């Protein structure tokens, strides 16, 4: 579970997608982000940012998310990697 308020939570999900930690929704599969998927994305973001890996939207994590930054994603090509994996499985 997350200690963030709903607005912080939705903002964080948007932030995680924007900077490459979560896949952007695919209109062809329309999957729902799972709680575990979001927590894992938070963990990777925390690792990348040098924070303690809790998987929770704690105050340190929200603080780092609100810091001014470069617009480019931190994880590049995650969607491409997932798409390739899916294609290979098929």
């Amino acid at each position, binding site marked *: *579970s*997350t200690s963030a*308020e*709903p*607005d*912080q*939570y*939705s*903002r*964080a*999900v*948007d932030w995680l*997608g*924007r*900077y490459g930690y979560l896949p952007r*929704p695919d*209109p062809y599969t*329309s999957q*729902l*982000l*799972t*709680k575990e998927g*979001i927590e894992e994305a938070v963990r990777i973001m925390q*690792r*990348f*940012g*040098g924070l303690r890996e809790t998987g929770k939207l704690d105050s340190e994590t929200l603080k*780092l998310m609100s*810091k*001014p*930054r*470069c*617009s*480019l*994603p*931190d994880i*590049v*090509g995650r969607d*491409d990697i997932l*798409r*390739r994996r899916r294609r290979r499985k098929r």
Partner: protein
Amino acid sequence: YALSGLKWDKTDLTWSIHSYPNPSTSPGLANNVVEDLLTRAFKAWSDVAPLNFHQLRRDSNGATAKGDIRVSFDSMFHEDGYPFDGQGGTLAHAFFPGTLDISGDTHFDDDEIWSYAGDSRSTDLFTVAVHEFGHALGLSHSSSDPSIMRPYYQGPVEDIAHFKLAMDDRLAIQQLYGVKDADRPGGDDPDFPRLPSPPPPRPTQHSDPSFQERCQGGFDAIGNIRGEVFFFKGAQFWRTQRDGSLVSLNPAQIKNFWIGLPEGTNKIDAVYERKSDSRIIFFIGSQYWVFKDTVAMAGYPRPLSDWGMKKKSGERVNRVDAAFIWAHNGKTYLFSGGEFWRFNENIENGQRTMQPEQGYPRENTLWEGMPAPIDGIISWGEGNTYFFKDNSYWMLTKGVLNQDDVTPKSIAVDWLRCPAPPSTSTPANPRFPKKCTCNFLG
């Protein structure tokens, strides 16, 4: 360090400046100072790799030459898919090397207060420029500390004149272009996976049959789930993301996505995502379901009476109109008819309380100007509360129950990517239902 997989196939690169910081936002940063800072930022990279940067200036006709790396200061939407967001937030971005027109281009947010060696309110242009030029040369974000390629702004460097790249950044640029003064400038092709080519563009699919459904409003339930807004109508639903885009113009079928609701479900009354454990709660008639992600948990449906809601008249509540968590206090609110109940769903001593708080129900009219009964309510944006009814929505600022200006707006236009209707008439204001609304033209 991390590499983008792209690099220039030459080491002599040209750059040009196409606009300068707005003097009213960034006073004291004259054009010649900007040029000097950017020149020094390039030098940080050419000090450690066999790269040469030449600035192209305006020609005799006043036109700015193009060059490999074009620098500009832009605001908000500037037609490259990476809109800026005013002061703070995103500061700048650059495009990786390549053969496209935009490759290498570097954009700074003109709404920032740019400076050098300035105070904490301003942003150091030199520091950000070194970072962005790293992207323009082929570097991705690094998680190392220290590294100029960390994604977050780290404040100004101590001494611009003597700035030296950290080891992580030196190794990264030398991996791409070789070591300065080495026998063979340019370096070998780096040994890392190339990004796949993007899939070919697909033609836009027209969705005429669902267009009316989506754009005429009248949703059964609206919920903020996993950071997206879900609009349920009949047996289908649409999803709007935080940036305002729809996951798809075509609706998804409830039965194909939410597994465990009864066969033939064609109306959801209310839905919300529980704060304490991210479970998703659906209300249909006098029953409710708890979902873990997209699958209903065992033991559901359960009767609505579990929630202990009774009307002021003493009757049991047999349906829920809307449910949401108010960002202001983190509590859960359920609405039915003209009344609402408040719940504290935190788990205490291993137990979740399912009883409404003392003093409830209360009248919907406490939320001044909001219609009743309501189709859906969410907390969204900066914690503001959005009320949805028919094809209109109303916004109350975070924590506020009554505010002077509550103008209804169009759900279709603002949330579901529908064209604005040709009429300029304003929807009725439920706060003053019989009062005429004059617009500027009226």
